[in-house]
């Protein structure tokens, strides 16, 4: 039985033997992207889970060239890698970054903005597990409203994180970047197609992939892919692209699945009250009103 998606990517494994927790969504995103880009991908990883689980001397779990950048410097190191290889006459390579949500939306946003501004020929992939996981689950600019983290605990007065998730996809797009996309590890064919498309476009490409973390989200390891599907079905995340100045929605659920069911499956949202869930549902509806008005289908 031929699987077209499997046929479209390398049979080799480039992220193998890594020490990510069982069922880690981020590691699936890195693995899948590298199988699209192949052996000539040069990956840059800042501090965060994917560098921590990949580089453990003397072990190196990347079988393509890979390097750890400073926490804030994923995009600037990508700029350097691309310019350096080009200066040395290399033509067939892809400089690709894999940074977490903290490394992207908080500490790395300046370097990323600079790279997009210069339109450097790189792919920047943000694997979004919605907190600083590698240091033990602290809130980032991409942690959603209501989530319990060690810096946004759930008490009787304050129910976890008080702030909404930053809109990194649209922030990247607002630079008028050649290509930006959102994705989910719950839909690997869609993610693979987007990485492939990005690899064929010149200039800066930004892909934001939601990548659940069983450890930080409080779900069983076998639930990661399911929950990454459900976040899209419930409308709390969406699959879209930005290209040639236009936003395009890739998938519109016929009817949203229950927000409450999505939230209550996860330890980080267990404490939420009906009122909190109402707030989250209302902000989803507001977001979709905007999407329906401004995105092409």
């Amino acid at each position, binding site marked *: 039985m031929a699987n077209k998606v499997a046929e479209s990517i390398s049979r080799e494994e480039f992220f193998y033997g890594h020490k990510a927790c069982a069922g880690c969504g981020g590691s*699936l995103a890195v693995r899948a992207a590298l199988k699209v880009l192949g052996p000539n991908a040069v990956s840059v990883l800042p501090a965060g889970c994917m560098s921590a689980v990949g580089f453990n001397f*003397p072990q190196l779990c990347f079988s393509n060239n890979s390097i750890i950048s400073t926490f804030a410097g994923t995009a600037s190191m990508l700029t350097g890698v691309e310019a350096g290889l080009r200066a040395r006459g290399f033509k067939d390579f892809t400089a690709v970054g894999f940074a977490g949500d903290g490394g992207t939306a908080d500490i790395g946003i300046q370097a990323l903005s600079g790279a997009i501004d210069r339109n450097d020929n790189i792919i920047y992939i943000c694997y979004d597990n919605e907190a600083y996981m590698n240091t033990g689950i602290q809130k980032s600019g991409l942690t959603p409203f209501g989530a319990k983290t060690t810096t946004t605990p759930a008490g009787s007065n304050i129910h976890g994180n008080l702030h909404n998730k930053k809109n990194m996809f649209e922030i990247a797009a607002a630079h008028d970047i050649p290509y930006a996309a959102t994705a989910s590890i719950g839909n690997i064919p869609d993610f693979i197609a987007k990485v492939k498309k990005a690899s064929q476009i010149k200039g800066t490409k930004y892909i934001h992939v939601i990548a659940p973390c069983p450890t930080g989200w409080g779900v069983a390891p076998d639930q990661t892919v399911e929950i990454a599907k459900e976040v899209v079905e419930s409308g709390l995340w969406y699959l879209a692209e930005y290209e040639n100045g236009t936003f395009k929605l890739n998938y519109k659920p016929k009817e949203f699945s229950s927000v409450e069911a999505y939230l209550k499956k996860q330890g980080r949202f267990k404490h939420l009250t009906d009122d909190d869930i109402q707030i989250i549902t209302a902000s989803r509806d507001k977001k979709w009103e905007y999407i329906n008005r401004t995105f092409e289908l």
Partner: protein
Amino acid sequence: MRPYVREKKDFTFDEVPENTSFEAGYLTTVNSGWRSIRPVISTNKCVGCEQCYLYCPDGVISIAEGKAVIDYDFCKGCGICAKICRIGAIEMEAERK
């Protein structure tokens, strides 16, 4: 090809590379000890659709002669493959010592 576990795991000072790692894909330890449950593929049922191959976070599934095969040295027993297989060809079984 997959990266493989190297025979050589201890080094004298002189053998340690000047950069922060050996060559790319240099593996010295397996992950099999992490498992409390293991995926077992029923070869009769498996239709080789490769869904489990696409979704395994550790990349330990490959297809040989049209059937899924698992590299148990590096499988962590997360159970994602068993959930993704639509025809129920993968069963999670307790790991016995």
